[in-house]
C-alpha cells in the first residue's frame, strides 16, 4: 500500500513474475495509472423535515461538491474530522446511497443513475468494508454463511464449490478454514475484521472502499489488519479507498490522500507532498495535532496549531471558505469567495486563497479577520515563522522558473507574505497588483494538462 512496499513488489516481481501489474507500479507512477473511478461534482444532502406535513426545512450537506479520481492499483486515503462526510462519500461512491447530484464513473462508465438491476453486476467490482467489526456481521449467521453471502446474492457458483472457495478466502485473510461453522461472537475484533475483509473479497472486486477498517481495533491487532490489506493489494492487484481519521494510519497505507472538511475536499495530494509540505491550513492543523510518540519532542508547543471550538454545522456551513471561522490566515476574500480546488503543484491540489508552502493566491487581501487574529493566538510561533519562510521560498522558486518580469512581481509578493505575518493587523501599503497571481495561474494550467 505504501510506496516502499510497491518498490519491494517490483523487486519481488522480477523473481516471481506473478505479481499483478497494477500493484507493482513504481514510485511516482500513480500519475500515469489508469483511472478506475472518477467522481465529479458529487453531493449528498440529507433533507431535514419538520412538522405534520414533513415539509423540508433544510438539509444536512454531508457531501457538498467533491471531485477526485482513484487510479488502478493505488490506495487513496480519505481523512477529516468526525462528521465531515467521509462515510457518506464512501457509501455514495459504492452506490449504497444515491447521490443528490454529480456523477460517478467506474472504468469510464457512468454509474450514477444505474438501476438496482443494472447495478448488480457492478456490485461485484466495488465492495465496501465497514467501520465496526462488531456491528457489521450478523450474529446469528455462521462465518461460512457470512462469507458466502455474496455468492448467493450474485448467483455465482465459484469453481470447486462455495464451501471450498470460502475456506480458501478464510485462509487468505489468515483465519482457520475450519472455523467455517463458528459464529461471529467467537472471534476477536481483529478476526471479525478479517471476516469482513474475506466477505468483501469473495467476488474478486476491483475496488474496495474501506471505512475505518482498523479504528475499532487495538494497535497490535490494527497492525495485523493493515499488513493483511497490504498483502492482499499486492497479491490481487486491488485498488483501495481507505477512509480513516487516524493520520498516522492513513500515511502508512496511502499513495494519495484527500483531506475533507465539512463536505468538501480541501486538499488532495501525494502522500509525501501532503505530509512534508501541506498546503491547506486545515491539513497543517490536523497534522500538528497528532501526538508524536517521541517524548523528546514533547513541549514543542511552538509547532502546534490548536483549533478553537468545533467543526461548524453542515446544515449551514460558513460562507466562502468553510474553514474561515477557524483559520488563522482568513481574510475578507475567504469569507466571500469559495476557493477552488486547484492543482498548485504537480500532484497537489488545494482549495485555499492563502496556502501554506506556496505563493499566496490572493496577496492583495492582507487584512486578517477578527476571528483569524484570535485563532492565530493558538498557532505556535515556529509554525508562523516557518510558514512565512516556506511561502516566501516557494514563491521565489516559482518565480525563478518564470520569465523575468513575472519573477519580479512574485518576489515582491513573497516579501509581502512574510511581512504580512509579522504585522498582520495593519493593511499593507504596498499592495501588489492582481497580476502577481499570474505565475501561479500559469503553473496551474501547465500542470493540469
Amino acid at each position: 500500500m505504501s510506496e516502499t512496499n510497491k518498490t519491494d513488489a517490483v523487486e519481488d516481481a522480477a523473481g516471481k513474475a506473478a505479481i499483478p501489474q497494477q500493484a507493482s507500479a513504481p514510485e511516482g507512477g500513480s500519475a500515469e495509472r489508469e483511472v478506475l473511478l472518477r467522481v465529479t461534482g458529487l453531493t449528498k444532502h440529507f433533507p431535514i423535515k419538520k412538522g405534520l406535513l414533513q415539509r423540508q426545512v433544510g438539509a444536512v450537506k454531508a457531501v457538498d461538491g467533491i471531485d477526485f479520481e482513484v487510479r488502478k492499483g493505488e490506495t487513496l486515503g480519505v481523512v477529516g474530522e468526525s462528521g465531515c462526510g467521509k462515510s457518506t462519500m464512501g457509501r455514495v461512491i459504492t452506490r449504497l446511497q444515491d447521490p443528490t447530484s454529480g456523477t460517478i464513473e467506474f472504468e469510464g462508465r457512468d454509474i450514477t443513475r444505474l438501476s438496482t438491476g443494472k447495478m448488480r453486476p457492478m456490485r461485484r467490482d466495488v465492495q465496501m468494508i465497514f467501520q465496526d467489526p462488531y456491528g457489521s456481521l450478523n450474529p446469528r449467521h455462521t462465518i461460512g454463511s457470512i462469507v458466502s453471502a455474496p455468492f448467493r446474492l450474485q448467483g455465482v457458483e465459484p469453481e470447486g464449490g462455495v464451501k471450498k472457495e470460502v475456506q480458501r478466502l478464510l485462509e487468505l485473510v489468515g483465519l482457520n478454514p475450519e472455523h467455517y461453522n463458528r459464529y461471529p461472537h467467537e472471534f476477536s475484533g481483529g478476526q471479525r475484521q478479517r471476516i469482513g475483509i474475506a466477505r468483501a473479497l469473495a467476488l474478486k472486486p476491483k475496488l474496495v472502499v474501506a471505512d475505518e477498517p482498523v479504528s475499532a481495533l487495538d494497535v497490535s491487532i490494527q497492525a495485523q489488519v493493515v499488513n493483511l490489506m497490504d498483502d492482499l493489494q499486492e497479491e490481487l492487484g486491488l485498488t483501495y479507498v481507505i477512509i480513516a481519521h487516524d493520520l498516522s494510519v492513513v500515511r502508512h497505507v496511502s499513495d494519495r490522500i484527500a483531506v475533507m472538511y465539512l463536505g468538501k475536499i480541501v486538499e488532495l495530494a501525494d502522500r509525501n507532498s501532503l505530509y512534508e509540505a501541506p498546503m491547506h491550513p486545515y491539513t497543517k492543523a490536523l497534522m500538528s495535532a497528532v501526538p508524536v510518540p517521541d517524548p523528546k519532542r514533547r513541549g514543542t508547543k511552538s509547532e502546534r496549531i490548536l483549533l478553537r471550538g468545533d467543526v461548524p454545522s453542515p446544515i449551514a456551513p460558513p460562507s466562502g471558505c468553510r474553514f474561515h471561522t477557524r483559520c488563522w490566515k482568513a481574510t475578507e476574500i475567504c469569507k466571500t469567495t469559495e476557493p477552488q480546488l486547484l492543482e498548485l503543484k504537480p500532484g497537489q491540489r488545494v482549495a485555499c486563497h492563502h496556502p501554506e508552502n506556496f505563493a499566496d493566491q490572493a496577496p492583495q487581501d492582507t487584512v486578517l479577520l477578527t476571528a483569524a487574529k484570535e485563532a492565530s493566538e493558538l498557532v505556535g510561533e515556529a509554525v508562523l515563522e516557518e510558514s512565512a519562510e516556506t511561502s516566501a521560498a516557494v514563491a521565489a522558486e516559482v518565480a525563478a522558473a518564470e520569465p523575468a518580469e513575472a519573477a519580479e512581481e512574485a518576489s515582491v509578493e513573497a516579501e509581502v507574505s512574510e511581512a504580512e505575518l509579522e504585522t498582520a493587523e495593519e493593511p499593507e501599503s504596498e499592495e501588489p497588483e492582481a497580476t502577481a497571481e499570474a505565475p501561479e495561474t500559469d503553473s496551474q494550467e501547465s500542470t493540469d494538462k
Partner: protein
Amino acid sequence: MSKLEKAALGEPATDVAAPSDAQDAFLSVRDLRIHFNTDDGLVKSVDGVSFDVRRGQTLGIVGESGSGKSVTSLGVMGLHRAANATVSGEVWLDGQELIGADPDEVRRLRGRKMAMIFQDPLSAMHPYYKVGTQIVEAYRVHNKVSKKVARTRAIEMLDRVGIPEPAKRIDGYPHEFSGGMRQRAMIAMALVNNPELLIADEPTTALDVTVQAQILDLIRDLQKEFGSAVIMITHDLGVVAEIADDVLVMYGGRCVERGPVGEIFDQPQHPYTWGLLGSMPRIDRDTADRLIPVKGSPPSLINVPSGCAFHPRCPYADLPKGNVTRTVRPELEQVEGGHWSACHLSAEDRTRIWTEEIAPKL
C-alpha cells in the same frame, strides 16, 4: 558500560514491596487485585498491580483493551461496589489507605480530593439534567456555597475548558453538546473542586485529533496550575509520549513494564512493549515498509496463560532456558532506577534484541 549491562550484573531487585520513591508519592497503589465472579468463572481483571504517582506528575497507563486499565482506575476511586467484585491490596492517597476505609469516607474524597474523567462522557453526565446543574451540584456537595456562587464557578469552569458562550451553554442538556463539548463539560465537572488526583480514562479516544489536542492541553495547564497528580489511561502511545512522566504497561491484568517515559521509549525492556511500538504507524518517521504486529489475540482473563501471560504471542518465548516462560510467572525486576520489567529474558538478550532487531525497524 551501558546502564543495562550494569543492571544485569547487579542482583535484580524484585518489586513486591514499595518502589524507592514511595515516601513522596501522593498516590501509592500496592498489589491491587480486582477479581469478578462471573458465570464463566473468575475474571482476574487486575492481578497484582503496584505504582506511585507524585504531585504534579502524570502516570500514563497503556495496554490493549481488556488489559485492566479501567478496572484499575475504578479500583483507585473505590468504585467497585458490585457484589461479584473482590478487591484486595492497598491504595494510599495522601497517607490515607482507601481499600479498607469506610465507604462514606471514600465517597467524601471522591470529587474533592480525587476525580475521574470517564471513557464515555454520557455515562458520567445525567441525560435529564442540565449540564450546569450537574456541575453546580458537584461543587456544592463539597463546598458550602449558595447556588449563585456555584453557578458562577460552573460558568468559569466551562469557560476554562473552552466551551464558547459558557453563560448560555450552562443551561443546555448533555445531548445538545457535541462529543467534544460533552467531554469538555465532563472535564469541567471533574475539575470543579480542584482535585489533587485526576484520573482520566481514555478521555480522548472517541475524539478527533484536533479536539484531543485541546483537551490534553487543558489537562496539562490545569495540572501545572494546581500541581495535581494525574493518571492518564490510553492505548495511544503518542498521547503517553506527549503527557506522561512515567509509564505503566499493562498486559492481562498485570504490569509488565513500568518506568520513566524516556526510558520506556528509548530502552523498552519487555517484548510486549516492543510489540506496541512496532505495531504503531508513526507520523514522525519515514514510513516503515511494514508494521510489526503482535501476533494472536489478547489473553483470556479467566484462563490466563500459564507462566508469562504473554508467552502465546511472544516471539522470544523459547529464548529463556528450559520451559521457564511457560511455567513460571515472571515478577517485575528492577532494570535501573524506577524502570521495572517482568520478563525471563536475560538483560543481555533484551539489550541485544532491542538494539539489533527492534529499534532499527521502528
